[in-house]
Each structure stands twice: as structure tokens, then as C-alpha cells.
């Protein structure tokens, strides 16, 4: 069992942390340098977390459990206009990013209004590529309960809805609802607003843990982080990508920011030391985001083994 951990400390000697994680059989997912500070997202074997804690103490750094690490969340606003952005939707996306998630923020083309609200097939397919969707909706209970469900009723991934009122029941087709996060035209910084963001992060964390539990019933042939490591070692071009997260981990695979048309075969031919090639244990699909590719790892019930 790998524990998602976030390390925040100075750049000085931080390579010791990376070496320790690699020695323990964990994975470093992302390293962000901010002048003299560094933030490392990693997966550490559960039984060895204490070793990491000791090292962090020695280096005067802080480590926290970040349940959203290694997940890919999409935040969806009804449109990209100033009615919904930048406050609220961007703050929600940024807050989850700080908890370790990779977030994508989109505005729907025609998501506004009540009777006229709609989502296109392309937008729906894009949403289904992620682990979870957060819809940042508005102020009125009537809209939330009776009208806006058309946006997420056909989406397969769990949907979390945010809005202003406190609802006694979760709107139909949604997995969860978080209140006090409706249409707001200022930055979320007041006590109640930060509290609502914390609640959202907690709700999203719980749903993702449930998803992980669901996946563990029929485990994936390999861990997505293992695929990330092999891609980094066997396809050096990935290091030339300017994206902050060239490989975005998901619960069931990863999104690789390399052109699908050029690299599909190279990715499928990645070899694992246990023998199989990546093409045998995962499906490589085109992603809806630019020309990127999506890797979906097959479960044990399909391949018959776990590596």
C-alpha cells in the first residue's frame, strides 16, 4: 500500500528525500521548485513513512498526507465568462492542487441558464477521462435541484457539485454536494469560505478513497506510478515537455503529454523487467486534451497477473 505524501521544505539536501523514496520502493510524482523552497509529491510505502518523517525532521521540512496526490480532477464552470471565473472556480481548482491533485479547469460552451443548459458529447468525453468532476454551480436551490442535473447525469465519473445553499439532500445524479461555494465575485478568503474549500477537499478525498477501494477489489496489473517511472526511463523525450506535469497520474492510468500520433507505438513497446510490454497490460488511447495520450491499465481479471 502506497501512501500519498507531500513534502515541503528547503532545496538544501532535498535529493536525500528523493533517494530515500526510491530506495524504499516508492515513487516521486512531481517536484516543484519555488526559489529556495521545494515541494515534492510522492508515494511512499505505508510501513516506511516513519523513516521519511525522521529525515524530514532532520531537514526541518514538513510532510503531510495528501489524499488527492496522483489524481486527476476536472473542475467545470458553466462558462468561461466573468460570471463564473476567476473567483470560485479557479479557487476551487487551486485549493485541490495544493492538496496534491492535478486539476484541469474548463468552462462549458452552453452550460448556463436553467432550461437552456447543456453539455456537448465532446465535453462529456473529456470529463470522463478524469478521476472525478467538480461542477461549480450557483446560488439558487431550485436550479441546483431541478434543472442543472442535465449537465452531469450522463457522466460516468463521480460528480461533486458546489453551490451556495445548504441542501438536505444531494441533487440527483451527483455523488456529493458541498454548500457555501456558489457564485462569488471576490477571492475566497473569509473564514467560512476557506472552511467550505476544506470540506470540498475532504469530500473529494473520501470519494477518491472509495474509488481506490473499488479498484483494489480487482487490482490493476501495475501501479500507475510504475508506468510513469518506466516512461521517464525509456522515453527520454518526455523530459523535453514544458508542461509542469508531463505525466499526469490517474487512479486507473495516466495522461501522457506526448503526441499520440508519434508516440503510440513507442509507449506500447515499453518493456517491464518482469517480461510484459505496456501494450499487453494497458490500452493506449488518444486523449481529448490536445494530441495527448491516455493510458488505461487493465485489471488483473483481464491480464491474469499483477507485476
Amino acid at each position: 500500500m502506497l501512501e500519498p505524501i507531500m513534502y515541503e521544505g528547503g532545496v538544501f539536501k532535498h535529493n536525500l528525500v528523493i533517494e530515500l523514496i526510491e530506495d524504499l520502493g516508492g515513487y516521486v510524482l512531481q517536484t516543484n521548485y519555488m526559489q529556495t523552497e521545494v515541494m515534492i509529491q510522492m508515494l511512499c510505502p505505508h510501513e516506511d513513512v516513519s523513516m521519511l518523517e525522521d529525515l524530514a525532521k532532520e531537514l526541518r521540512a514538513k510532510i503531510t498526507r495528501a489524499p488527492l496526490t496522483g489524481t486527476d480532477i476536472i473542475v467545470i464552470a458553466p462558462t468561461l465568462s466573468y460570471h463564473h471565473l476567476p473567483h470560485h472556480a479557479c479557487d476551487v481548482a487551486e485549493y485541490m492542487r495544493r492538496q496534491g491533485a492535478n486539476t484541469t479547469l474548463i468552462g462549458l460552451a452552453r452550460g448556463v441558464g436553467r432550461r437552456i443548459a447543456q453539455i456537448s458529447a465532446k465535453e462529456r468525453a473529456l470529463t470522463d477521462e478524469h478521476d472525478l468532476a467538480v461542477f461549480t454551480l450557483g446560488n439558487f436551490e431550485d436550479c441546483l435541484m431541478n434543472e442543472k442535473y442535465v449537465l452531469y447525469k450522463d457522466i460516468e465519473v463521480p460528480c461533486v457539485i458546489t453551490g451556495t445553499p445548504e441542501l438536505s439532500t444531494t441533487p440527483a445524479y451527483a455523488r456529493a454536494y458541498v454548500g457555501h461555494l456558489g457564485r462569488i465575485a471576490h477571492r475566497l478568503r473569509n473564514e467560512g469560505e476557506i472552511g467550505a474549500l476544506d470540506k470540498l477537499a475532504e469530500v473529494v478525498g473520501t470519494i477518491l478513497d472509495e474509488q481506490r477501494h473499488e479498484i483494489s477489489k480487482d487490482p490493476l496489473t501495475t501501479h500507475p506510478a510504475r508506468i510513469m517511472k518506466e516512461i521517464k526511463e525509456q522515453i527520454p523525450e518526455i523530459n523535453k515537455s514544458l508542461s509542469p506535469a508531463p505525466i499526469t497520474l490517474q487512479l486507473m492510468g495516466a495522461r501522457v503529454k506526448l503526441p499520440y500520433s508519434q508516440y503510440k507505438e513507442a509507449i506500447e513497446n515499453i518493456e517491464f523487467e518482469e517480461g510484459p510490454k505496456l501494450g499487453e497490460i494497458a490500452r493506449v488511447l488518444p486523449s481529448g486534451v490536445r494530441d495527448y495520450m491516455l493510458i488505461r491499465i487493465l485489471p488483473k481479471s483481464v491480464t491474469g497477473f499483477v507485476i
Partner: protein
Amino acid sequence: MKPLEVFKVESPDETGAEAYDSVIRDVLADLELTTVLGRLWVEIDPAEPFFIFCALIRTGLPPIRVSDVADVTTGTPSSKQVILELTNEEYVPQLLGRLRMEYGHENIEQPDKKTMTITTEEMAEASKSIADTIIADPRREIEVRLADALLRITPEGFRVRHHVSTGSEMLFVASEDAIQPEWIKRAEGMMAELKEGSEMEVSGDA
């Protein structure tokens, strides 16, 4: 009329009304319109659905003339020049644009930062007309900002709109369905009530 002496946001959904109150205050503050509006009454019914916005605008912002930003004098008769000594530099770009359009680029000079000279045959007449020229109209800018604020405040899906705007009042009805005549009547009633308040205040002051 004091700034925002009446500020009402009403809706059958009270939580929604409170949230809208906050959105409207934020938008008005962002666009520096808080002191421009005297009375504001917004009503939103998501079930109908309609959005009504009635506002009384505080008047008293005259257009800016050249004489407000500069002392206009005439030079010596032989120089054939009108001289502007600037007292306020805020509107110089508009002033220069206006003068160049009127008297030609080659006839306008700025020997130093706070002085402008205009060469013209009709010195006396020109100095008078220049002094009266309107170079900026804050009212117009406010109208533009107010229209922007309205579009930001109105629920985005409410794209069918009806508005009546005069110099001192603004009535706006929006919905995602066709506008019903009774909504407009309701808005007119609200506007009348807002204005009634202001008349009472005037008679009270007297």
C-alpha cells in the same frame, strides 16, 4: 440622495438573495459604481424565471469643459495665439485630441508641460469657444460602466432582455424565456416605488 441609501435584493430563495447581495456589492465595488447609484432594488425569481434590476442614478456630474482644466488667455495680437495654462493634467490626452481635430495638428504646440498654444486668426472667438469645448463626459463613462455591471450581475443564462434607461434611472428585466408583460409592469411598479421614496425625501428636506 445618498450613495446606495436603498439597497434591496429580494427573492423567494432567501439564501440565493443573500448571495446575490454579495455579488452585486462586489461588482459595484470593482467597477467603482458604489457612489454612483442612489437606490437599488433587485428582484430575482428563479422559478419564473426573471431578473429585475431597478436603480436610481445619482446626478450631479457635469461634463468637463476646457475652462475646468485650463486657464484660457489670448497672446499678443501679433502672435495670433490662444494660450492654455493647464491646471489639471488628467484630461490632457482628450484635450489634445479635440484641439488637433478642430485647429489642425500643425497649429497646436506644447512649449512646456503645462502650456499649450493654438495658432489661429480668430483669437478672441477661438478663446471663447475653446473655453466652452466639452472634452470629457463622466456621465457617459458611468453609463458604460453601469451597462458592464448589469451584464456581470445578471444571471448569464438570462439572455432575453428589456431595458429602459434615462439619465437618472435604469430599469432592466432579463429572463431566459420571452419577457412577460407582467414582469415589465412589476419592474415599473418597483421603479415608481423607488422614485416615490426620493420625492418624499425632497419634500421632507424642504
